[in-house]
């Protein structure tokens, strides 16, 4: 009886193993196909159409129907909007994380945590729409602009969108700081503030770095909310109050109608590849930050 059960259990395990392995195999193949597809189509602009990589990266002469594929305005737009989001959302998110993990009374913390998690679940179109109807007109009135679509609007919307990520990850990073460090600090007579700034933040620094980097990754890949408030003007940014365009928003505006096999389409693929490379770079950074900790 025992032997039969054991045999059956053994067979079940094998079936489970095969099924799960096939599923992950399919996943790995899918990822490889995506990478291969993007690498192939994203470099076609340089191999097939003989457009110079230098011009793609550093020229902002974008006239895609006439063979000018300088994407610098989009690259700069993405970087500036993301930078602004991190400048606002990074410190704010870490500060809120510190508050929840160190200072907030248990009851407050347990009430706010679900609220923060809820923010993660709000679809980006909702953030974009709120930005479009509340923030964009407010910016127009404040700065006496005819139209409030701007890098500033995109930066603010993105900073709100990355907050939940930064908050929960920095909170987690602070929670895993060993109790002994806190106790040691207290034993030396340090105040709560001194403990936070001199002990907790430094020892959680790699975790906090990961929180901010993931915030960057979230911000640079965001499409819909950015497209709604950025104005989508292919102009190299010289002011935070001007409309601009991002890599993501440009791709989504033109991918449907750009003719297949044209330099236009290839340039959009190159921009997608660039986004992928940036994301991979950020992941490498995270691994680097985490390795430093261990």
């Amino acid at each position: 009886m025992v032997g039969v059960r054991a045999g059956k259990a053994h067979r079940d395990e094998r079936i489970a193993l095969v099924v799960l392995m096939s599923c992950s195999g399919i996943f790995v193949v899918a990822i490889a196909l995506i990478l291969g597809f993007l690498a192939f189509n994203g470099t076609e602009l340089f191999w097939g159409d003989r457009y110079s990589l230098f011009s793609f990266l550093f020229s902002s002469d974008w006239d895609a129907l006439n063979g000018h594929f300088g994407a610098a305005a989009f690259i700069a737009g993405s970087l500036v909007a993301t930078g602004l989001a991190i400048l606002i959302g990074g410190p704010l998110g870490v500060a809120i994380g510190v508050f929840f993990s160190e200072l907030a009374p248990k009851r407050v913390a347990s009430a706010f945590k679900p609220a923060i998690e809820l923010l993660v679940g709000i679809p980006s179109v909702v953030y974009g729409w709120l930005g479009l109807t509340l923030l964009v007109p407010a910016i127009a009135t404040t700065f006496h602009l005819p139209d409030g679509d701007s890098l500033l609007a995109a930066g603010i919307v993105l900073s709100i969108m990355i907050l939940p990520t930064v908050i929960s990850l920095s909170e987690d990073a602070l929670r895993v700081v060993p109790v002994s460090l806190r106790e040691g600090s207290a034993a030396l007579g340090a105040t709560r503030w001194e403990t936070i700034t001199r002990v907790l933040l430094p020892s959680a620094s790699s975790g906090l770095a990961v929180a901010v980097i993931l915030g960057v990754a979230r911000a640079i890949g965001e499409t819909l909310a950015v497209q709604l408030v950025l104005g989508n003007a292919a102009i190299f940014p010289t002011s935070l109050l001007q409309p601009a365009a991002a890599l993501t928003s440009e791709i989504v505006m033109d991918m449907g109608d750009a003719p297949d096999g044209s330099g236009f389409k290839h340039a959009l693929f190159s921009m997608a590849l660039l986004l992928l490379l940036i994301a991979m770079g950020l992941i490498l950074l995270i691994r680097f930050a985490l390795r430093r900790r261990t």
Partner: protein
Amino acid sequence: MSRSSRLAVLLLGAGCFVPSLAFADTSVSAAGSTALQPLVQAAADAYQQSHSDIKISVTGGGSRTGLSLVSSKSVDLGDSDIQAPPGSDALVDHKVAVIGFSVIVNPAAGVTGLTKKQIQDVFNLKVKNWKDVGGKDQVITVINRPASSGTRAVFIKTIMGGATSLPPTLTEDATGTVVQKVAQTPGAVSYAAFSGTHNASGVIELAIDGAAATEPNVQDGKYPFWSYEHIYTNGPPSKEISRFLAFLETARAIMGKTGYILVGDMKVSENDR
């Protein structure tokens, strides 16, 4: 391993392997221009009511997508605002309708009509204030469609005198957004199809060279901002498709309701413009 977890694993496995099944017999597929989509959809709905043996599915995607899908025979009908590029010899052009477009401005601009030359100056950013073209002292905010847009292509061809490109400005990619943006932004100007602008509140449709943006003016050739809507087939259409296209091209009631003009009602052709 418990029964339920085994079931879960099996279901998970099944989820990975179930192929997508589709049954289709006498079906016609159409894809492409989102400007033409409402007309094709409305005509397809009406046609299917009287012809239960035919199933017509209509999707958007954009003019150039429609052209490439019909070239690769992925769809039967490619809807397009623009003519197929030279070299696509297999494609047969069916001019199914005429669509009019308006240049729309925010009321704060204080203009109700412009000459073609003035519109060119506005969109080339040579004129920056409405007072320079007879309007109020109000900064002009130009909103364009994306480079790949069919509406933009028609605008450039019929109004901008075939200029190869426009200076970069604010860009919105859907008719609804464009109209809303112009209504919200003092001094904004853009362009969109009649179907999106005739009944829109908060925007003014400009007369061009003295001709108001109306269907009769398009038919008489007084108003220049219009284009044919094309449906392309790959090779000569089958009998069923021919019948549907004939139905579509003469569906006056549907066209009136959705903002299109019958090709047969035009007193001018594209070459007269």
